[in-house]
């Protein structure tokens, strides 16, 4: 179990670094797919079976296909290195390390009060659906309205504007 976690963790971190570090957007997108699949496997290890499947179907299946489609549609060139690039990269990495330094003690000190109820719950479709359609029914319906609005908004934004006059 521990070895599996270490392997998946290494995969997830390496592919996340790949997303940021690789020059070509296509390579970044493929690294992100790898990352999402790794996270889905971690969900499965955490007994969140339904979320693991949804992660693959929605994220790796739908969203990333959309992203790759846009990248190929726009035919992007490789990003040119910038003059201030090195300094900016160093500063951003420094900021990231500081941020991590703030987070890390929280995890080790703040978690001591937790009692671990591990392995009592399982995110099966049955348990998930029951909760989603009873206590979280209203947010669920609101989410469907949100998706509808997003689709209409995407169509409006993507529409070509006519010359002269807003149509």
């Amino acid at each position: 179990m521990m070895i599996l976690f270490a392997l998946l963790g290494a995969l997830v971190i390496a592919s996340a670094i790949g997303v940021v570090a690789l020059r070509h957007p296509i390579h970044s997108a493929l690294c992100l797919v790898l990352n999402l699949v790794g996270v889905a496997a971690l969900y499965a290890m955490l007994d969140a079976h339904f979320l693991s499947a949804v992660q693959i179907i929605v994220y790796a299946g739908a969203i990333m296909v959309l992203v790759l489609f846009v990248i190929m549609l726009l035919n992007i060139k490789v990003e040119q290195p910038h003059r201030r690039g090195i300094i900016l990269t160093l500063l951003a990495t420094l900021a990231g390390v500081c941020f991590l330094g703030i987070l890390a003690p929280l995890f080790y000190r703040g978690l001591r009060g937790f009692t671990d109820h591990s392995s009592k719950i399982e995110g099966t479709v049955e348990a998930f659906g029951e909760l989603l359609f009873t206590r979280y029914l209203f947010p669920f319906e609101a989410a469907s309205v949100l998706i509808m609005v997003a689709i209409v908004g995407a169509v409006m934004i993507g529409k070509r504007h006519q010359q002269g006059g807003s149509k």
Partner: protein
Amino acid sequence: MIPVSFYLTLAALMFTIGVCGVAIRRNVIVVFMCIELMLNAVNLSMVAFSRTVGNLDGQIGVFFVMVVAAAEAAIGLGIIIALFRSTRSLESSEASELRR
């Protein structure tokens, strides 16, 4: 059994990489993907907490984050295409004015 703090550390690392990516990269599509990376890091920590606390509410939260991420992808990519049409590039520094 793997302690929850391992998952949280992994999530923190992923989130930090995402933050650095947003700061470093200038291609708006890569910035978008880094935002997805951060969302995933938060999702991972929520699933880990959900198991630790012992109820499914955290996983429901992750589900809604995924819904919002899907909506964000539709709108965000639409905006990226509109941006490319008006400026002919995807540099985030090119998009410095609001009017066309």
